[in-house]
């Protein structure tokens, strides 16, 4: 009897996945946006712990130095903190504006990430009401982050380039040859290029699809391995590591749709 119940659940799961495949991630993203604050607690705690760990590791004489600096910079900090944050945001936006694309829509905070090991998605703390919409490329000063796949009034879900559903048109930064980068969690890309493409380990790949989702020339990943080619293969396959460290992202730059 239990076996029948289990088989019922299997059928239910298969039916649900098939029925919602065309709406995914619309339906789940609605819930993901609302549950983000809950997961955001742990995410923010982790970010703070990592930052604290880095700080303590780097500065063993933290206490002494802190006492000396506290007095000196307290009044400066108070007056300038807000300004500094704003300048930093604008600097990043300008950097992206100059190096990647001229149509920055917003600088959005990353408030959470999905908890599944197989998906790689980020939740942003801005949404429809802030001008974000589905299909907008998301990037950072280090390189391409992904694309917005769902929005609510004040939240947006970003599918990163290492998500298994992600496909990004790429080309080597210094050589011709357009290909496709497929996301491979947890943190790599599988890139298929024309066999004639001249590429070596360490080369940088940039966005390069014609009329694609992303502007031309945004750095995407660095080649880490060139996979052996099977006889008769029509594509050259390489593995690449994204230039962006997704776990350390606090803010991202959202670009306008092409």
């Amino acid at each position, binding site marked *: 009897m239990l076996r029948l119940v289990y088989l019922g659940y299997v059928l239910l799961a298969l039916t649900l*996945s098939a029925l919602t495949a065309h709406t995914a991630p619309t339906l*789940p993203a609605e819930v*993901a946006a609302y549950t983000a604050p809950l997961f955001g607690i*742990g995410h923010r705690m982790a970010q703070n*712990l990592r930052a604290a760990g880095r700080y303590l590791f780097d500065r063993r004489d933290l206490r002494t130095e802190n006492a000396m600096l506290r007095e000196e910079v307290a009044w400066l900090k108070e007056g300038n903190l807000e300004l500094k944050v704003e300048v930093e945001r604008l600097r990043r936006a300008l950097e992206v504006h100059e190096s990647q694309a001229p149509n920055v829509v917003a600088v959005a905070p990353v408030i959470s*990430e999905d908890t599944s090991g197989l998906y790689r998605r980020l939740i942003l703390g801005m949404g429809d009401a802030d001008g974000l919409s589905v299909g907008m490329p998301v990037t950072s000063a280090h390189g391409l982050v992904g694309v917005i796949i769902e929005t609510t009034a004040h939240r947006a879900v970003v599918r990163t380039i290492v998500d298994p559903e992600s496909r990004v048109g790429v080309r080597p930064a210094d050589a011709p040859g357009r290909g496709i980068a497929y996301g491979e969690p947890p943190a790599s890309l599988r890139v298929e290029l024309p066999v004639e493409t001249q590429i070596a380990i360490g080369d940088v790949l940039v966005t390069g699809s014609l009329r694609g989702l992303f502007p031309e020339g945004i750095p995407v990943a660095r080649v880490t391995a060139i996979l052996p080619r099977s006889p008769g293969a029509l594509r050259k396959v390489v593995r690449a590591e994204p230039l962006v460290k997704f*776990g350390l992202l606090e803010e991202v730059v959202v670009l306008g749709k092409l």
Partner: protein
Amino acid sequence: MNAFLLILFSLILQSLVSGLMPDWLSPPDFWFLLAIVLASRHNPYAGLAIAFGLGLLQDLTSAGYLGFHALGLVTAAYAFYGLRGWLHWEEPAARMVILFLAFIAKWGGYLILVYWMRYTTLPPSTWLGVFLPELVLTMLLAPPYLYLAEALLGPGE
């Protein structure tokens, strides 16, 4: 009430540990441990329903296909009930064996759905980069998690 607290604690713990992990390392699966703990305290029919519900919640929070994690967790719970007939859940060593095999079953559930949706299996990089670290970390963190769960829920059946 305590079960609700355990669920809340597990979800926050999941996002905390996920955030602490470097990008290249897949986090442990507290959803799985939570499903097994709750399954161990309910009859099989309720346990399967709870596991399926938790999986659906995970699908919803991951903005992914509905049913993907649900099938994984319900398969793990089903394996758990099957294994509990052969091994004693109360004994620590047997408990780890049950968890290990239930974890494998969870990924069996994933494979069924991946094949259903894409007519393909998972690539080797997923097995090496996601399955293996997730398995090792989940097994390493299982004893303290089970201890905490027992402290919160009281001794099981």
